[in-house]
Each structure stands twice: as structure tokens, then as C-alpha cells.
């Protein structure tokens, strides 16, 4: 390497560093600082009147003995697993339908994917009206068909499945779009070979499509996991965590603890814990994605 190249590299590196500085500063200001500040807050006791004192790990110790925390973990996990399962299954099915129906008019395709473009608050208000046990359309349809009405969001046993169904209605098209992208990138030669060998459609799907789609499905899982583990807006609009605490996810519990009950230190500890859960899940899923990559 000549001396002139080395001297040229120095200013180039400096220029590149200067160019990326705004992005670095933005990241630090908008992500790193709030996160570090929340961690610092989680070690404080902050009273509703704003008095602050160092609490050490007291907030985390309190969490272990807090029934509401464990209820939040349970509801978060239940809602996450149920919603994710439904969205992956139905999203894949919808993607296969859209992939095969190549002549489907654009307007129909747009209708299929329109729910996830709707703001969650609007979707929440809409479903709140539809599922109202007294005045809503859902029970009207059920009773018109001779079926018993449901309490939907007002039933402690049915509220989480109902929320999962609403979220599935909204986000299945998003999963379908990701899977559709994956389907379009699959090598046609493999399918040609399978057809020549006389493989059935089900066998082709089970033995070829699904294994080849795994990296795409894991990507969809990662993206949905981040949202589902932080599930908030739909619950906040429809049930506020009720009835009783049947839909109080960890995120809802942390929010209410902080902004309604003014215990910012404890709420920060809850949020740090939730962040660790989200981060841990994403890391595990990313490793899984590497193992299924082809």
C-alpha cells in the first residue's frame, strides 16, 4: 500500500464518519438515551408527588412478589402465542391463495390487505361497536342464526381469544404479504422436478414449499413478535385491561402503573423487564432464522 493511498484513506474515513454522525446522534438521542434513562429510573422510587430516592433493586424484588406482574406475563404470553399461531397459519393460507390467483383484480388484492393499513385505534373503536353485547352487530348475527349471544370482550374467559381474533383480522394480511414475497422467490425448478416425479399438491406443499418458506416465516414471526409482545393500543381502546385483569398485559400494567398510578420507578422496572423479554425473543428467533436459512 502506498503512502499516498494511506493519506487519502484518513480524510475519507473522517468524511464518512462525519456523514454518518447525524444518524448516530439521532439513534443515541431517540433510542439509547430513553432506554438508559428508563433503566436508571427503574432503580429509583418516585412518589406521586415527584419525590425521588434511590431504591436499588427494590422495584425488581417487588415485581417477583407482585401477582399483577405474573398475571401480566401470563396474559402477554397467552395473547402472543395464540395471535402468532393464527396469523402465521392464516397468513400463509392467504399468501398461497394470492400467489395462485394471479389473475385476481387489483382491487380485490387491495381489499385483502387493507385491514393492516387501518390505525389500531380506529380498528379498536370499530370492533368495540361491533362486539357490544347489547347493541353490536356480532350478537345480532349470532342470535339471528339461532346461536346464543356472547359477551365477547366482557367475558374474562373469552376476552383474550377475542383480542387475538381482532389482531389476527388486522395483521394476517401483513404476514400474507411477507409470505407472498417469499413464495415469489422460490426456485421454480424444484417444483418442476416434483411435478415430473408425480408428487401430490399436499406433498409439494409439505415437503418443498413449507421448508423453503421457513426463513420467511421466521422473519414474519420476528416482526409480529415485537408488536405482539408489546400489545397495547387495541387493549387500551377496547377493555383497558379488563374485565377484572383478564386482558392486562405486561405493557398495559406498566403503562397504568406509570401514568395512572404515578409510580414511575416501578413502571420503569416493568418496562425494562418487558424490553428484555422482547429483545431476548428476537435474539432467539434470529438465531433460529440462521439455522433454517438456505
Amino acid at each position: 500500500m502506498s503512502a499516498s493511498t494511506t493519506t487519502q484513506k484518513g480524510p475519507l474515513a473522517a468524511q464518512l464518519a462525519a456523514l454518518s454522525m447525524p444518524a448516530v446522534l439521532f439513534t443515541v438521542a431517540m433510542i439509547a438515551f430513553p432506554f438508559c434513562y428508563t433503566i436508571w429510573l427503574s432503580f429509583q422510587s418516585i412518589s406521586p408527588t415527584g419525590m425521588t430516592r434511590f431504591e436499588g433493586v427494590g422495584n425488581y424484588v417487588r415485581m417477583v412478589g407482585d401477582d399483577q406482574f405474573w398475571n401480566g406475563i401470563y396474559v402477554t404470553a397467552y395473547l402472543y402465542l395464540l395471535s402468532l399461531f393464527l396469523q402465521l397459519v392464516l397468513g400463509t393460507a392467504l399468501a398461497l391463495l394470492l400467489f395462485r390467483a394471479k389473475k385476481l383484480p387489483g382491487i380485490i388484492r387491495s381489499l385483502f390487505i387493507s385491514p393492516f393499513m387501518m390505525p389500531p385505534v380506529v380498528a379498536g373503536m370499530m370492533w368495540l361497536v361491533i362486539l357490544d353485547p347489547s347493541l353490536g352487530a356480532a350478537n345480532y348475527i349470532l342470535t339471528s342464526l339461532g346461536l346464543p349471544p356472547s359477551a365477547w370482550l366482557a367475558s374474562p374467559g373469552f376476552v383474550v381469544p377475542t383480542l387475538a381474533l381482532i389482531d389476527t383480522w388486522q395483521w394476517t394480511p401483513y404476514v400474507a404479504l411477507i409470505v407472498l414475497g417469499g413464495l415469489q422467490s422460490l426456485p421454480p425448478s424444484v417444483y418442476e422436478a416434483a411435478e415430473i416425479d408425480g408428487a401430490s399438491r399436499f406433498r409439494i406443499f409439505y415437503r418443498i414449499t413449507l421448508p423453503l418458506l421457513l426463513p420467511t416465516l421466521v422473519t414474519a414471526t420476528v416482526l409480529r413478535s415485537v408488536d405482539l409482545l408489546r400489545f397495547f393500543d387495541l387493549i387500551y381502546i377496547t377493555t383497558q385491561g379488563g374485565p377484572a385483569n383478564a386482558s392486562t398485559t405486561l405493557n398495559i400494567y406498566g403503562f397504568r402503573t406509570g401514568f395512572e398510578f404515578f409510580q414511575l420507578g416501578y413502571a420503569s422496572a416493568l418496562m425494562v423487564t418487558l424490553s428484555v423479554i422482547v429483545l431476548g425473543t428476537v435474539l432467539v428467533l434470529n438465531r433460529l432464522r440462521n439455522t433454517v436459512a438456505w
Partner: protein
Amino acid sequence: MQLPLNLSRAFAAALLATTAISGAAAQDFDWKAHQGETITFLANNNPWATNVLKYKDEFEALTGITLRVDTYQEQQMRQRLLTVLNAHSDEIDIFMTLPSREGRQFAAAGWYRDLKSYTQNAVSPDYDFDGFGSALVEAAVFDDVLTGVPLNIEGPILYYRKDIFEKCGLGAPSKLEDLPEISAKLKECAPDVTAFASRGLKPALPYTFSNFLHNVGGSYMKDGKSNLCSDEGKKAIGLYANLLKDYGPPGAVNYSFYQLTSLYREGRAAMSFQSSNEFPAVMEGGARLEDTALMPLPAGDGGSHPTTIGWALAVSNFSSNPDAAWYFVQWASSPEMQAKLALEGIAPPRNAVAENAGYKAWLSEQPVRQEWQTALGHLADQGTSEVGYPIIQNPESREHIGQAVDAVLLGTSTVEEACAEADKQLNALIERE
């Protein structure tokens, strides 16, 4: 415990009396004194703010002050407020506040500017601070600090269907303890409608439940301890929860003002115990104008102690323009403005406005409007602003009250189990304070 409003008038009178000596200051009052300044108002997107902000240009023309407005729904407004006040930021000069909910907390934190001296020394000649109902003024006083100026008066009242009651041969309920029997008869006679509806949503129900508790003679605290497991407390929890469980709408556990208004307006409830503020929304479309009667919750064994609260307008203690901010408070709570708002169905906190000829003419257009005003008069005379525990952590106390009632409503606990669990949690909360 917060004093019943009728007993506290003497306390507020001292504050009101001091305004009498402020006549000289009023004569020197200049609306243009803060011309060119800018103030920021954090508003709750409710009918009061919506209506008053229609006249924003008039305020700016009158004072030369630029008014910036930040409007949010109530919950979001409170989040923003908490963040700003906790940071001691001067970003917000004026905000709407519910003294019955956060008054004690915000006052203890020193977040309110004391408006007492403003009401004495910086008022226009026609402001008439004495004209506010003394009970509402007192409800906004914490530790001798006047935290806000009353904007309205509200509380839960009983909306009921005269036609259904008549069809079923029933008269208006005269005693709280009669409600289950009346509801049972309504359920049998008019099975297509819900006999009794009220709030069931956990954080929202203390607003209506408190009236039940006080009317049966109960109280939230006694000798510094939670008192929900007293005989009266258990009676109130049982009565309220079982009314909703046996005669309430399906899904009552998620009911707040929105569902109650929709249900009653659609003609699907025979009785609905809900906010007086919802009166214009309930009457929207006119379907309920002719067949509805209004009354305070019937008295119980402990008498009649309706829940009476009101929004107030406060100035932040961290405002860099408190004097200009007070000008907005004064303009927005003036007799002239409150008379205009009364015609939009916002119950006036000033006695003089209730006597205003225009307002009286509006009331006389429909008998139900007159009943609404009569019920509000009862709330003003007999009301208590105790919604939840009279502690700094009042919002969290409401959570435990709601949890106890909902546990009985959902059938997951007996009254004894629910009140015992609530008392345990609430005593821990009181101790933590």
C-alpha cells in the same frame, strides 16, 4: 375525608369574602395588560373545552394575548400533563384538572399555582368570583391553596323511562334499597330492555358507586383505615354489583359513559345511572326527550349524598406567564362565558347563571331539561366530592374499589372476600402514603 359540600360552605366563604375588598383593584383592571404575550392551554377534549374554544379569537382580540391550545382526550391529556409537570417544565401555562381525582396529589407536589391572590387582586369588574357555588370552590382548595376555578358542575343522576315505569305500574323509586325490587318487576314486565344500567368498568365505576356507598351511610375510610368491609360498605358493594349482575346489560363489566349513553339513547334501558354531563348526548336526536325523567339517586338508610364534582381551570406553578394565564382563566370562567356555555348543556357552576333569563328560557323548552337542572341543584346542595379514597394515591384507590365490585359482579368472589381483599390492598396503599 373530604367534607360534604353543604358543610364546607363556611370554609369557602372566607375565601369568597376576601374578594369583596377587591373592588378597587377591579376598577384598575386592564384586559390589554399582557398584550403580545403567548400562553399555552392544555385542554381535555370534552364539551366544555370544545365550546369555549369556539370563542378563542374573541379572547385574543380582547387581550392581545396569543393562545396556543394543545387538545387531547382526557387520559392522554393527563399523561402529557404528568410528564410536563413532573419535569417542572414551563411548556404549559394553563390546564384542565379534576380536583376530586388529582387535586390532592398535584397540590402536594406543588404543581398548582395558588389562584387566591389573583381572584382578589386581578379581576375585571364584572368577574364576580363570589358568584361561584361555594361548595365547588371549596372542593378545589387543598391545604389552603386555591388550585383552580370551577368550570362546571356534574355528577351521576338517574335517567329513567316514564313510559316503561307507567306500563309496569311503577312509580319513581323513592328509596335506594327499593331498586332491586323495582328492577325485578321491570325485568319481568319489560324483558326487552335492560332494567338497570350503570358503570361497571373497573377504573370508571367509583364515580357511580360512591353515591351508593354514601347513601347507605358508608365511608371509604374510618380512623385512617380502609372501611369497605364495614356493614355499610358490604351492603353498598352487594347492592351495586348485584343490581348490575341480575338486572344490568350483558357485558356490564366493561360499561363506562359511552356504552351507557348509547344503550339508553337507543331505548334499551329502563334506568340508567350515569353522568349529568351526558344529558345533551342522551337527548341527541330527540328520541328520549318525551319519555325520560331525571332524578338524583334515591336516598338510602344513610340519607342522600350525591356525588358532585366539576372540572376546574388551573395555572401551572411552572408557568413563565402566570399573570397572562390568569387572564385566560378569568375570561373562560366569566359569567358571560358560562351563560353562553349553559345554553350548550354545560351545567353552570355559578348560581347567577342558573337564574339567567336566557338559560331559564332554554330550560323551559322541555320539562326534562328542568328536571336536569333540579337534579343538579340537589347535587350542588347535598353533594360530596369524595370519589375514591381521600389520599394522594386516589387514582390507584379507585382501581381497588373497582376490582372489588367487579369481582362480585363477575361472580368470582363473595362480597366478604372482595371487600377483604380490597381493604388489604387499600390499607397497604394508605400505609405507603
